[in-house]
């Protein structure tokens, strides 16, 4: 089977190019094939991996333009393998995901001061069970057109994680978590939904952003589109016939 892998070549000068490899491993995952290439054909090929079971989120790449976990994807003849988008490529398929992951700090996506005497019921746990499954693989940041154009955008998984803590009945600092997502955050999302089908954990960050907007409205914040009063923006015109 032929795989075309985008490599970052440093000699004679720095450039990116697609390199073809032939690999025969019936029924193997992409990660197993990458490992086969590295151990048997080309030890300079670089890629990231960890758990090999779709839990650690370190092996996300793009296959034919679509984000996939390489440990879960079974390749087809001629697949084109590229690194994630919107992140600096360190080498070949290895990207620097630190910027995206730092957004979790920017959204204060952690459990803060606990409220006293709270009982967590199974129903409470279910409320943010799906959001808790995020493995920070970065597929949603790679697919997000807003993050592509505005690197300060807090981005899909950080906002999903913000919703996870905002809905936690133990959380004592919900107001703070809502405040920090108003700028370069929930209102900047175009609602395009690109982050939804690429998520290997079946999380829908777009829906979580919608819920955060709802919560923000209830807490007195306003979509800038409405606070602009429709007078300050660009005029689309209303022709009459």
């Amino acid at each position, binding site marked *: 089977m032929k795989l075309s892998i985008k490599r970052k070549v440093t000699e004679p000068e720095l450039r990116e190019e697609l390199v073809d490899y032939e690999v025969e491993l019936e029924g193997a995952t992409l990660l197993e094939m990458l490992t086969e290439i590295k151990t048997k054909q080309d030890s300079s090929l670089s890629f990231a991996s960890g758990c090999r079971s779709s839990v650690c989120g370190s092996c996300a790449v793009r296959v034919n*333009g679509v984000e996939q976990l390489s440990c879960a994807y079974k390749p087809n003849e001629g697949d084109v393998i590229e690194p994630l988008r919107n992140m600096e490529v360190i080498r070949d398929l290895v990207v620097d995901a630190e910027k995206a992951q730092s957004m979790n700090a920017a959204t204060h996506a952690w459990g803060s001061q606990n409220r006293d005497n709270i009982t967590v019921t199974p129903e409470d746990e279910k409320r943010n069970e799906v959001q808790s499954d995020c493995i920070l693989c970065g597929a949603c940041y790679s697919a997000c*057109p807003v993050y592509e154009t*505005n690197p300060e955008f807090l981005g899909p998984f950080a906002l999903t994680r913000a919703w996870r803590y905002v809905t936690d009945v133990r959380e004592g600092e919900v107001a703070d978590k809502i405040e920090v997502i108003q700028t370069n955050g929930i209102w*900047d999302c175009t609602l*395009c939904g690109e982050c939804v089908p690429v998520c290997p954990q079946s999380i829908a960050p777009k829906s979580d952003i919608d819920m955060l907007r709802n919560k923000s409205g209830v807490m007195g914040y306003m979509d800038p589109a409405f606070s602009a009063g429709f007078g300050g923006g660009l005029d689309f015109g209303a022709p009459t016939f």
Partner: protein
Amino acid sequence: MGKLQYALFTGCTAKESTPEQLMSTYAVAEKLGIELVELSEASCCGASHLQDYDDFLSLVLNARNICYAESRGMTMVTICNTCQLNTAMTKHRLDSNPELKARVNEKLAEVGLEYKGTSQITHFLYAIIDDFGLDKIKEKVVTPLSQFNIAPFYGCHNIRPSELQNESHNSPENPYNPTSLDDLIIACGGHNVDYEEKNKCCGFHVELQAPKTAAILTGNALIGAMDQDADWMVTPCPLCHLKLDTQYEHAGQAVGREIEMPVLHMQQMVGLALGCTPEELGLQHHVANVNFV
């Protein structure tokens, strides 16, 4: 096949900002022998904003609109991607959650309505492809668009999320590689242009909140089509059309390129192939110069 009939949910945009889209919808329907009954009682769908403030109100509002299609015993047809998303998502949620449906119906009873779930909801693009049929459209083409390279721009809310596609269409669209609009271009005799941005976001929904992001997304789409030698673009969504047509200069400034790219509504493209005049299709009302007809 009997005469196709649909309850037309125009949405707000086609009534106000893009009336040429509504005109061309009727012109195409007449050429194809499709009867459209306008839902004059219908309101706004919430435009993907209302649910942020009041999700239940958004459900009631959209269920109310669907009720008027149900009372006519017709499939509802939309001509805006965001209207399609909001109405189809409402139907999806109510049909799969009897408790929620009961709560919505309690509210609707105040205005003498009941949501039953008997009407299907489809975009006009899929109505003419799935129900009328591409082969029959081909037979009706009198002016093939064979001299044009046409770039399809699908618009997010018609192709994502997938579960609505799976419920609504005979052959659900792949959100990564949609084909319906390409197929329609080919059926009209045109050459479909493949480019990376065809299933990307136009930026409309952050126009006011994040204008720079919106302008770059619009510019990327227009340049993507230009660089693949498209003569013009076509879209099934009036919101995408507003962004791509009225904002092309601003978008060009944002991405540092001069942009010249006519953008037509999907109905206008079909109308041209079926022999409608530019006046019948409102082509003179575009901002970008439509100079090829």
